[in-house]
């Protein structure tokens, strides 16, 4: 397999995981709306925080593989998303092990700010004029290094990761509070 083929295969696997995560987030939100707040505790319990950690860990590893193995240079907005995602893979792990409620106060701001950045980055890819009129050849934020199914790019993947983490954290909060 050539380097380009390996990258293509990697993109496809991540794109599929992104779709699974997106469906998971939607299902959780709908479940919560239909079944009510008490159902959150019964459905996931303390497992919600472990799942949130798993999402953050996969996203962190996925991003590091892009930069360290495939030598993608992260653009400015990619760096902001990394700043919000990477700490969560440690914070959520510690919170999961210690079963501490306080973890939500650390993780939720990170996931929400990360989600906002991902949405803006995705918009820049759809409307490149949001960030200037030309492309820096090294690492333009507007270029889509990855494009699967016609709409899944790296900030889309990150945005889905942040969304699922946020939803899982809210489920965990409810589980502990109720």
């Amino acid at each position, binding site marked *: 397999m050539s380097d380009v083929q390996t990258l293509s295969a990697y993109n496809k*696997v991540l794109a599929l995981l992104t779709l699974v995560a997106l469906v998971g987030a939607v299902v959780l939100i709908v479940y919560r709306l239909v079944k009510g707040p008490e159902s959150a505790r019964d459905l996931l319990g303390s*497992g919600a925080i472990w799942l949130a950690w798993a999402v953050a860990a996969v996203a962190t590893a996925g991003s590091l593989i892009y930069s360290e193995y*495939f030598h993608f240079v992260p653009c400015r907005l990619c760096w902001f998303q990394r700043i919000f995602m990477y700490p969560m893979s440690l914070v959520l792990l510690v919170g999961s092990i210690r079963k501490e409620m306080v973890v939500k106060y650390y993780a939720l701001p990170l996931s929400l700010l990360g989600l906002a950045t991902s949405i803006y980055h995705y918009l820049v890819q759809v409307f490149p004029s949001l960030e200037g009129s030309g492309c820096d050849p090294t690492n333009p934020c507007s270029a889509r290094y990855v494009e699967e199914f016609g709409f899944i790019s790296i900030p889309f993947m990150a945005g889905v990761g942040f969304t699922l983490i946020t939803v899982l954290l809210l489920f965990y909060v409810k589980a502990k509070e109720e």
Partner: protein
Amino acid sequence: MNKNLMWIIGGVVGLALIVGLAWAIAGEEPPDETAGFGTPTVTGTNLPAVENPNAGDPAVGMTAPTVVGTDWDGNEVAIEPDGRPKIVVFLAHWCPHCQAEVPVINNWLANGGLPEGVDMYAATIFTNARRPNFPPQTWLQRENWEVPTVMDNAENAIALGFGVMSTPTYIVLDGENKNLGRAAGEIGVGGLNALAAIAASAVEG
């Protein structure tokens, strides 16, 4: 967490991984990573880079290098001092601004925007097989691009020769390949008309 739910989540993620891997391995033909690159010869002195396009071009009046290369069909394309003023646009296949500008240029040309006695050329630069929309010729052919286009090599000889720091970039040359001005970014019809006016002023007779 409910154990059944844990198995369901694990199963769905595992299935996604297996399907993704199978799809990826059985999928596309391996791409030709050399497609999209040319072997141009670039002779002469490189123009200095345009660090800040809004601050003016420090290389106005300097002679641009002569480029002789080919398009994707092997047809020779030469950007040389042939006595005719020309506008050259530098495009990168992965750049969304270039993707937006190409149809604008096509319409402008179709509407007779290019003055009599002025030629237009293009160069595909910063080509990268690991970036989207590769190779550039597939994209340009899809856009019905008919401007004579020379393909840069993997060392970016053409981009370096013309001091291109971002895409799209335009340069206006007189008949002796002297730089009359460069512009960077999406310039639209108004910008194209301005460059055409500069080029037209260099038409002799």
